[in-house]
């Protein structure tokens, strides 16, 4: 119950858009590329990062592809047409000299920002088990716990650094799961990606700590194009945490990230996300456009990829973390909570592509819509002819709070192997009045009762989150639904 109490306190302190907790703006002089997008900008970004020729070529090819592509319009979301020439595609916080050598060298303004965000960077080294690769407007500023990781042979660094330090790995894996031709936003990302994390877990290594990144969008009108690449070599394991907050802005902000995961024989990656970017105000003004391509490739036999996401923020979300189950006996999981309130629009789900024998997938999706928001689950389970004895279980539940919101379910189920067993269940209903009444009869205020019931509704997914995320997520569930009843 403590978490709920805390939720209520948070709710009192927060509320709708104008009180958004993380809606402050840090005034740090930015090193920006001119507005707009053309080949010169792509070259500028590449040059700014001192990238090798092959990387520039990769970007330019993606850019040329992108020019020929059309923005997808099949998702159940509406937003004004994006003027891609009206964004900045590169901005980096200025640092003293070539870069900080220690925490002391980090811009104090930046540190204060993190403090407000609740990332205790100063205490990071003392905090157990979490290494933070803090991404502030596209450039990684501080990476901690590197020593301990390198002892284990784990490579955890900004991808811009990996391009130089481990070009052979980047060359081999970058774009091998999400090719730049995959979709409009993936192509855009491949052309202009700013930075992101690179993780390589060597054979047989169990990563000694949970890896975590905080993304933060800060500069006005800055497109963020994160690129994350995680490779788990044979028999390895890693749990990766991604959490996001962004300051309040009136202009729509674009975020088109690409995340690629690769597991080899017997390896496992657990990828957890809590996303609470600024959702815009009640009328849908402002807020982040979150167009993300996340895909994992279970390349080796017996490998496993598990996605867990708690999506509470962003004005528009377009996101389908997927698994390609290539190796025999490989398994994919997708646990999702998507909460939409106000004028938010969510179109999210997953794809499970069963190629190998005995592949298993499990999809648990909980959508909660409140206010006048729209919340859609869109998913695909596809069994290919060779996927002998494949197994899928899908459950999508939607909860409606209020009569102005909407919930949609769009599953695609395709089976081409008779030995495969697929099950899909979906329900849509409203918050039970009986349960609400009962809680209130026991003295809980309505808002607290709603938070409690919704947390119960999401329990199966919350359980999948690592401890520190679960607490934050539970709070977020309550905060996100503030003002949705009564």
């Amino acid at each position, binding site marked *: 119950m403590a978490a709920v109490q805390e939720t209520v306190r948070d709710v009192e302190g927060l509320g709708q858009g104008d009180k958004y907790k993380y809606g402050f703006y840090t005034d740090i002089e930015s090193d920006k590329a001119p507005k707009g997008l053309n080949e010169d900008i792509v070259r500028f970004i590449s040059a700014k990062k001192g990238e090798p020729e092959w990387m520039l070529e990769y970007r330019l090819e993606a850019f040329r592809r992108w020019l020929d592509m059309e923005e997808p319009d099949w998702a159940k979301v509406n937003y004004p047409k994006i003027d891609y020439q009206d964004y900045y595609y590169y901005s980096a916080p200025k640092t003293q000299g070539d870069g900080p050598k220690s925490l002391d060298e980090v811009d104090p303004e930046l540190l204060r920002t993190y403090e407000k965000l609740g990332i205790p960077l100063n205490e990071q080294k003392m905090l157990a088990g979490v290494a933070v690769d803090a991404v502030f407007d596209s450039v990684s500023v501080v990476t901690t716990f590197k020593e301990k990781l390198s002892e284990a042979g784990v490579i955890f660094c900004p991808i811009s650094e990996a391009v130089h330090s481990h070009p052979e790995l980047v060359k081999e894996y970058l774009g091998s799961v999400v090719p730049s031709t995959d979709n409009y936003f993936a192509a855009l990302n491949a052309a202009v990606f700013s930075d992101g994390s690179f993780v390589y877990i060597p054979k047989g290594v169990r990563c000694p700590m949970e890896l975590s990144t905080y993304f933060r969008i800060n500069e006005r009108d800055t497109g963020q194009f994160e690129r994350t690449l995680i490779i788990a070599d044979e028999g390895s394991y890693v749990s990766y945490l991604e959490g996001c907050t962004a300051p309040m802005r009136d202009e729509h902000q674009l975020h088109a990230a690409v995340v690629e995961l690769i597991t080899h024989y017997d390896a496992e990656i657990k990828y957890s996300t809590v996303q609470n970017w600024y959702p815009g105000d009640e009328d849908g003004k402002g807020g982040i456009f979150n167009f993300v391509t996340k895909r994992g490739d279970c390349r080796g036999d017996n490998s496993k990829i598990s996605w867990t996401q708690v999506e509470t923020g962003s004005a528009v979300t377009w996101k389908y973390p997927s698994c390609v189950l290539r190796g025999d006996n490989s398994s994919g999981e997708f646990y999702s909570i998507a909460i939409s309130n106000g004028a938010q629009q969510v179109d999210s789900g997953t794809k499970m592509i069963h190629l190998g024998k005995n592949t298993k997938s499990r999809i648990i999706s909980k959508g909660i819509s409140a206010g006048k928001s729209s919340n859609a689950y869109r998913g695909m389970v596809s069994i290919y002819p060779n996927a002998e004895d494949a197994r899928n279980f899908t459950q999508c539940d939607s909860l*409606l709070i209020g009569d102005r919101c909407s919930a*949609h*379910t*769009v*599953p695609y189920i*395709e089976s081409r192997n008779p030995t*495969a*067993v697929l099950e899909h269940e979906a329900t*849509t*209903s409203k918050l039970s009045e009986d349960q609400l009444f009962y809680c209130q009869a026991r003295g809980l205020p309505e808002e607290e009762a709603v938070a409690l019931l919704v947390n119960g509704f999401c329990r199966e997914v919350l359980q999948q989150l690592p401890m520190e995320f679960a607490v934050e997520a539970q709070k977020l569930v309550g905060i996100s639904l503030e003002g949705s009843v009564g």
Partner: protein
Amino acid sequence: MARPAIQPLEIETGFVDDHAAATASLPGAATQGVERENAIKVFAVDGLPHRRLEDYRYFDLRQMLAKVGPLAVTPGADNATASDDANDVFANIDRYVAVVINGRLDTSKSDLTGLPEGVAFTSYADAVDADWVKAAFNSAEGPQDSVAALNRAYASDGVAVRVSAGVKVDKPIEVRWLSAGDTGTHYHARSVVVVEEGADLTLLETRGDDASAPVFATNTLRLVVGDKATLRHAAVYADSEASVRVAQKSVTLGEAADYQTLGLAVGAGRARTGEHVHFAGEDAKGAINGLSLLRGKAVMDNTLFVDHAVPNCDSEETFRSVLDDASRGVFQGSILVRKDAQKIDSQMQARALLLSRKAEMDAKPMLEIYADDVICAHGSAIGEPDQNAIFYLMSRGIDEKTARALLVAGFLDDVVDGFDDGDIAAALKTLLAARLGAPDDMGQEVAL
């Protein structure tokens, strides 16, 4: 991505080029001329639907007809035949029969004597200008795609039935869709059935051809079920592998209307039934069911759109497919609950048994909900017959083939049993049993 312009197929240009000449010989040339011309213009732009259109994702009509040469509009013929299944299924039921050959009502082969007073039965071509027919079509909802345009452009004939308020039709009316022609034919039928307030009708459809020549047919069926009226509808599709068919049903349900439909596909053709059910009055009930028992390279696509526009209605959608050989089952179902359509209870289920390595099932059960006080659910399961159940039956002395047939029969009969007319349900079960070789004819070869 900038898409290259699609090169029109021979059959598509044929539809457009032959239009003027072909429609001259169709019934109602004088009255339907303008509409037909406008419609073919729409078709000329859009062409046949293909898999890049979301609605036809699993039924690529363009590809299916790509290798079919130009087809001709052929008039009705005396030698029109149907497959045995289509001939026999309702043979033992006392009923009225309307025979439609190549999309034209053939009154000489129909038997409609004794229709009760208050039932108006004519050919669609004769009734096309009647106000009630116009009103029925003007209020129709449903996809205005290029198949609808083609159907409009070549609209030939069909049936027009009006059951006046309060009339209970004593026997079912069966509409038999036959085709004839040695070199291949295409036809595009349109029918309308209006069941007025408090009236009661059972409508049967049988469709089948004997594979003598390719058939491409579109069939538009407009059903209006008035306030407190009842319509039971059962259709048997026993198409041959030479046929490609698209049926589009648009249904409107009035207040407290009771609508029940069961489509049973047992053929080897490639067929699609697109059904749009619009709940326009409160307290209405709809049971929309589809069964497929397919073999060869058959494809059956059930695309369903249920529009709950008003509160307090119940709908139940149950679709089951049994797929053998290289057949393919498709289910695309969508339940829309509009804003303020509270207290809706809607349950949608799509299940499939795959009996062969080459069979395929594609299911897309969708929910689109804008009202909060509703109970909507969908479920989907795809797999093969339960090995444990087969083992159990075999341990009781039943051979494997019969055991499998029993399980399959049980899977399908379950839905047939729910049909609100015992005689018709029994007729459908007999057809299924004959197909499966169980349970009546134990020991017989399993036909699957």
